[in-house]
């Protein structure tokens, strides 16, 4: 049975700015994505040494998720009830190219493990011990309609009680993350989980 679901939190990373629920929470003039992401990691005083070993796609998604879940009480859900559904346009190409460069001499095991886009889901899951359904899809551009339908199906059928979903894209110097936390219960600042609201939040900070 279909019932309304709510976007209870959002995080956008675009144009050298991080937004939480529409409000800028970090700005940095760094033009290199890796420099920007490390600056943000230090700004938020995050303590997770593994962060430095991640590729840029995983760093981007992991960081966006940390901001997204700031203040989120994950203890109210079982690990199996929280899922992750992400998407992007370039898959893991950003790291595939870097790995290919190492193949010419000695292939890098540390880069090889990031030559799949869904590794970012694994990094988020390990961090928060989420064990729910997950999937990573490739689209030319952010497909809010698909995300809304897919996540709604998972939640409506009680496969998930909460879902982190959205877009995590990086290729070279171009990057954008747009993550949304979807839950069944509304909160003071939540908006209804619809294709239109996903697009509105996504397009608000086009970087």
């Amino acid at each position, binding site marked *: 049975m279909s019932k309304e679901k709510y976007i209870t939190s959002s995080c956008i990373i675009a144009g050298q700015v991080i937004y939480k629920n529409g409000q800028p929470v970090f700005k940095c003039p760094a033009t290199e994505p890796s420099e920007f992401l490390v600056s943000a990691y230090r700004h938020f005083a995050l303590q997770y*040494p593994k962060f*430095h*070993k991640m590729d840029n796609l995983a760093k981007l998604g992991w960081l966006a998720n940390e901001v997204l879940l700031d203040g989120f009480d994950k203890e109210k859900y079982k690990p199996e009830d929280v899922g992750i559904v992400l998407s992007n346009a370039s898959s893991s190409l950003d790291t595939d190219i870097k790995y290919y460069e190492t193949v010419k*001499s*000695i292939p*890098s*095991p*540390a880069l090889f*493990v990031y030559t799949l886009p869904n590794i970012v889901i694994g990094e988020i899951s390990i961090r928060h011990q989420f064990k729910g359904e997950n999937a990573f899809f490739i689209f030319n551009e952010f497909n809010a309609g698909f995300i809304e339908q897919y996540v709604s199906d998972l939640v409506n059928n009680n496969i998930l009680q909460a879902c982190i979903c959205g877009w995590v894209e990086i290729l070279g110097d171009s990057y954008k993350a747009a993550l949304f936390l979807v839950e069944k219960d509304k909160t003071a600042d939540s908006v209804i989980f619809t294709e239109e609201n996903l697009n509105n939040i996504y397009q608000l900070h086009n970087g």
Partner: protein
Amino acid sequence: MSDLKSQIVAQLNLQDIKPEDIGDDQPLFVEGLGLDSIDALELIVLLQQQYKIKLSNADEGPKVFRTVRTMAEYITAHQAQNS
């Protein structure tokens, strides 16, 4: 051994650790520096790139990569063999 520690920090991208923080006899894996299986592969790459040493017998890995000292001893022994 200080050069080797710097090489380990660079190869494994251990940005929160200074080379001098790694003890000569501190275990590199699990309860020590906390390295994982991918790090072990990167240490094998380090030996190849920096010292032209190929670890031919995988069973030697746990012994060679136990600490910075055991790595240094393995490198020294290998270099002596080849000189």
